[in-house]
């Protein structure tokens, strides 16, 4: 066994059996990786690629939970590989691609269906063309209090993948896109809020949600799409919130 630098605080080194779903065979490949406390799932993948199979395909970019591209399933749960620790004392780890999206190779999925639904809610604002200066909006206004906690979505697709309704082939916009729609409808700078509300009220919209809440439970950024959908259902009755009165 080669000697390597251990992460700060590393104590004992154990061995971890990793089962990785491979796309060519459709089966799991088995690897044994040396583990250390605090080891991330991403570190496990890098170790497999470096020491066992250089052709193993997985995606990552920023490694600090900003890009969202390393999302996968670890022991059945959708997580970001860069933020997910191997449970201490674990002897086995099962890795599979994110559910509900087409697999391109091994753990790499095509996010296109997720973004097609994201695009369907018109995810960009339609501002008043006459406005030429940044809006004056108090940070403690109801509007910002609604938007701010819902804003830092990294479009990782974990909520989409975890939702039992938004699986590929079913007709549901999904939690992330609806959360984005909520953010825009709450934004007093947008001129298309009524149209947006009508859009998310269609058949593939908010009524498809079964209120299971897996989206909010899984979100690595602690966003609450479940709550966003509840707001949207309310606004459908009351109309979009007045500026400063959400």
């Amino acid at each position, binding site marked *: 066994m080669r000697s390597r630098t251990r992460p700060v605080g590393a104590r004992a080194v154990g061995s971890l059996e990793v089962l990785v779903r491979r796309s060519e065979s459709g089966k799991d490949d088995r690897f044994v990786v040396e583990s250390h406390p605090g080891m991330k799932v991403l570190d496990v993948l890098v170790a497999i690629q470096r020491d066992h199979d250089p052709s193993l395909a997985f995606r990552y970019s920023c*490694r600090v939970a900003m890009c969202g591209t390393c999302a996968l399933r670890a022991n059945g749960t959708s997580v970001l590989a860069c933020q997910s620790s191997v449970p201490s004392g674990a002897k086995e780890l099962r890795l599979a691609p994110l559910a509900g999206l087409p697999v391109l190779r091994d753990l790499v999925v095509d996010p296109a269906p997720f973004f097609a639904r994201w695009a369907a809610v018109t995810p960009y604002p339609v501002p008043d063309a006459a406005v030429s200066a940044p809006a004056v909006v108090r940070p403690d206004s109801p509007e910002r209090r609604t938007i701010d906690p819902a804003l830092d979505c990294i479009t990782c697709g974990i909520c989409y993948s975890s939702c039992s309704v938004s699986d590929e082939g079913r007709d549901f916009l999904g939690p992330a896109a609806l959360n984005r729609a909520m953010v825009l409808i709450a934004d007093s700078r947008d001129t298309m809020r009524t149209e947006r509300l009508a859009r998310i009220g269609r058949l593939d919209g908010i009524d498809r949600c079964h209120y299971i809440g897996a989206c909010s439970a899984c979100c690595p950024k602690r966003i609450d799409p479940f709550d966003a959908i509840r707001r949207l259902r309310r606004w459908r009755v009351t109309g979009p919130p007045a500026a400063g009165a959400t």
Partner: protein
Amino acid sequence: MKPSDLPGPETIQTDVAIVGSGGAGLMCALHLAERTPGSDVTVVSKGIVGKSGCTRMVQGGFNAVLDPSDSIEGHFADTLAGGYWLNDQDLAWALVNDAPKVIVELETRVGCFFDRTPDGRIHQKAFAGQTFDRTVHRGDLTGLEIMGRLRDQMFRIGVRELEDVRALDLVVEEGEVSGIAALDIRSGRPLLIGAKVVVMATGGAATMYSLATPAREKTGDGIAMCYRAGLELRDMEMLQFHPTGLLAGDSRLTGALLEEGLRGAGALLVNALGERFMVRYDPERMERSTRDVVSRASYTEIAAGRGTPAGGVLIDIASVLGTEEVRRRFPGMVDRTRQLGQDLSTGPVEVSPVAHFQMGGVVTDVDCRTELPGLLVAGEDSGGMHGANRLGGNGVAESTVFGARAGDTASEMLSGISTGTSKGASRGASTKGRPSIAAARGFFAKAFRALGADEGEHPMALSKELKELMWRRAGVVRDRANLVEALDALEDLSERCTRTRAPGPPQLNPTWQEAIDLENQVTAARCLVASALEREESRGAHYRSDFPETDNARWLRSVRVRAGEGGRPQIRTVPVELSRLAPPGHDATGDSGDSGGQARTSP
């Protein structure tokens, strides 16, 4: 793969090919679509669009003059002083003038919403090296707000997005760019993209160091492609080290940043002996000194054996602010340290200087034009804007400001409208824009060589060697002996890069991609080391222990590098044009001769 087995390339024809989907690339696409509706725009993205660069990771913010009591001249002077007067003053002037316009555009057209003061106006915070609080931000996730909204604009304007496609090389025919040779990473097939205009915006090559902050995809591809196409690079020795990167051993989390705001809020830096060592390096500013000074101080402590066993120093904010306050003000940073089994809110955390940002790059004018007709360069791929050191908050400002300018210029080139100057007319869009397969064949053959090769070195092993070499011999503190040794070792690595082996299929094969990345990183590294060897003084991010002083009399000069014989870096130096502002006490009658006639090739 043998050249005879190489599949023929699929071809795509477009008006403008933008290489890179970070802040510069997407701002460029946006401006182009608005200036020239109906133009055919293609974004070539090595990973997922909007997710494979560093703009998204920006924590701190965006410097722009918005307050009536602030001034454009103030931002300009801060940028030049921060850059140790090596900046291209025209580029810096363009940045400070455009930054407020881009902030307004991002807020009123793109959909960004930055943090507000209690009365509802844009809040601007203090950042190191600035005489006015002018950093616009959204919490400590400013980049995410900008990139998220910019990415959504792409759904509106409907550009062609080539996701998981990497550019391999610029196709240059009859003295102008006719397109790019590219590789579809998903299918593993070659792709020939014909374009009237190519915009290079891929990001820098700080990943050539063992400790580095950037996203995985950023391997200096743009800089390397431009160098191979014969363009001149400037200031390549100027590579910024950020003083507070996390240490996590072999974990990929190593190098993740702790933000500068910690030092601003009073955090202490101590060595393994418990000494606040900054007192020896900058007793006045202490921990709040600039990135270059703090990085060098930490590095020196570690090198002198006063570092921690893991090779770092300690940052301590818990004992200054208390647990609750740290958790309230820096929740993201506390989370980040907890990921490593440490906790910033309860005690000191180990940090090290980490390679962060490349100030050097391709020589451009203020409109992002280069010496090669049909090619524009924007963002970190270009050089000169930041001089010898970049101020925090000027990075995302640069990528969006110059991305926007590149879009405007490309639009102008497409419509054939001359800027009214002879320069504008002679540097129009490529008249051809249809690359011949023959001109690209060599690029494909080179890229496909490693795939399925029977024998050869593992690219990941070579990559590790490169990173350790650069850290040890061309890092925070440099000297002649180490740089000479590094240049020799890089020549050897460069040769070994042509004999790597990537087993597995062509589709989404990470080792094959790493083989291609490696060649680009080594190219950028050679330019860096050759330039660092040339600059016999210390300035900003470039520190020579054998020439520790800053020498304005001799070295208000920019080091230029271009591919010479056998691709070896050929160096010359040119005086910095102090066209708008001179450093305090500078004698304008000093040496300003051009050494262009004494160009030489490095060993």
